[in-house]
């Protein structure tokens, strides 16, 4: 059983509780144990970085230091949390002065940021550590009759100087996971595009247009559902779907799944157990 520290994303603690619930169901089936980091704080959601760069470094240096204290890598299941914490890590690793400054403060809690733990997305752990062969072996209900649109989202791909796992122009890890679970991926040009989430409250019309485009292509390609590794993309594409499509004059709908739910289905768990009924579009 390989152990990891698991970062609790704000959205998974409130609106998309089904993400962590479904991971809990199958983690042991795939030979991994995610130890929840209850002391971890909000990463700042790609905003704290410019509101106060130093608080941003402190908060996320601390998040990583908590995992380092346990001697584990930090695993994240929200793209924006991933990008944000990795950005802070890069800044701390590149600046000995900044690292020294935050470590002076972290001493108060008996913590030290050393830079020894990696910050990784759950999708990467599944593809790289668990391995596609193991996943294939564990599948009980192959997703064989499903045509699936893989929506990666931005912050698992870009900026590539911070993320660096998939080629942002032609990502493959999610496609590989879908295929390992027995599903069929459709050619989907929006796979590496944006969901519009981050401006839903500031530039709503623009965000809805962005979401509608991604939904429209999946609908027109006759995909059975969209799958995403990010709960923020899910919120934009599922929660705001009716509004986005109405706005674009499209009378249709398409379900959107989290990767954790898609895996759960293939491993034999029910839609109810996985919390899929909680989606706005079912």
């Amino acid at each position, binding site marked *: 059983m390989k152990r990891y520290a698991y970062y609790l994303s704000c959205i998974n603690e409130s*609106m998309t509780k089904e993400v962590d619930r479904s991971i809990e169901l199958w983690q042991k089936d795939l030979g991994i144990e995610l130890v929840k980091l209850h002391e971890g704080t909000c990463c700042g959601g790609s*905003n704290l970085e410019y509101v106060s760069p130093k608080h941003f470094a402190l908060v996320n240096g*601390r998040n990583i230091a908590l995992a380092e204290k346990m001697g584990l890598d930090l695993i994240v299941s929200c793209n924006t949390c991933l990008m944000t914490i990795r950005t802070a890590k890069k800044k701390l690793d590149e600046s000995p002065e900044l690292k020294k400054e935050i470590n002076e403060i972290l001493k108060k809690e008996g913590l030290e940021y050393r830079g020894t733990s990696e910050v990784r997305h759950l999708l990467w752990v599944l593809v790289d550590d668990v391995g596609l062969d193991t996943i294939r072996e564990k599948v009980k209900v192959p997703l064989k009759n499903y045509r699936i649109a893989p929506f990666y989202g931005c912050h698992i791909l870009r900026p590539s100087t911070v993320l660096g796992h998939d080629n942002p122009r032609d990502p493959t890890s999610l496609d590989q996971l879908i295929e390992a679970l027995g599903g069929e991926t459709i050619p989907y040009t929006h796979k590496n595009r944006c969901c519009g989430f981050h*401006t839903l409250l500031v*530039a709503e019309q623009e965000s809805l247009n962005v979401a509608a485009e991604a939904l429209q292509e999946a609908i027109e390609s006759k995909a059975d559902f969209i799958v995403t590794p990010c709960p923020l993309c899910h919120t934009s594409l599922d929660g705001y779907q009716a509004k986005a499509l109405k706005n674009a004059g499209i009378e249709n709908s398409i379900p959107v799944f989290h990767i954790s739910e898609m895996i759960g289905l293939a491993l034999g768990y029910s839609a109810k157990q996985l919390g899929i009924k909680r989606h706005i579009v079912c």
Partner: protein
Amino acid sequence: MTVSTDQHKEGKKEVTFRVFRFNPQVDSKPYFDDYTIPVERGVTVLRSLNYIKEHIDGSVSFRAFCQAGICGSCGMRVNGLSQLACTTQVWDVLAKSREPGIIKVEPLRNLPLIKDLIVDMDPLVGKMVHYSNWVDSTMPEAQMGKKEFLISEEEFLRYDKATDCILCASCVSECSILRANKEYVSPAVLLKSYRMNVDSRDASHDQRLAELVKDHGVWDCTHCYRCQESCVKSIPIMDAIHGIREDAIESRGKHDTSGSKHAEAFMTDIEKKGKLIEATLPIRTNGVVWTLQNLLPMAMKMIMKRRTPPPPPLVKSVKGIKIFRAMFKEMTEHVKQDHKSHNK
């Protein structure tokens, strides 16, 4: 560097360029023309287009000048990605082509089309004018030419990378928000605006910033990083966008616009509970009226699905919040000290 034997053997290939064609004066709709030509290893997409124009079809239209990645004229989409035709090697693109042996060449997006691969740059130039993308000198005219403006290395480094921009418009073509609304300021203009705003020789900082925080300005960026990823000069464009936002909050206050209120909420909530209080985020960003008008129908659906975030009193603080708050406050003191020494 090792070069594969395949490449040694294969120094020349027949390559098909599938070129976007549209002349609004003649054609009712766009179409593609295929041109198959022999291409040697090391040849760029621009040289291939020149060959097609000279030897096969003189009517193919594109814009190009320096042929060396300096002037920014030949921005176009090669296999879907906005880049300079003159610095893009045919061999490199071919290796990743979806259809073997075929390279698709299309005009940049998000700008009006003039003909074939030529887009109209005027809307971009118009925005550069609107946001005063030049240094408006603080030096009185009488002193100009008589006195030097000395810039410290530290200041220069703040906009050094931004000055690499050659206005090729690749970032404009890739921008998610511009695709959704053509009024949006656009990444290149935000980059230029940042570059001017951090220049101590410039006198228009406040007016420029006042324009940048309005609708279709800096707060409409959705942080998708497509601009930065496609930049042909590898400029960290998002750093410039973040820089304008940081400056806007510092110079104009955290309650200035919905964008600044939204951003500031993260700072406040993290200090208070260690996590985001999502339930009140729409109200704190846009007020009660906007929230009721825009989010009520969706909120009802979310309540039915038990998907609503918990009300603020039910948001539990993270474990160990007391010591976390003390550390957060200590950093606030550091930041205050930084500002004091910076102002000195």
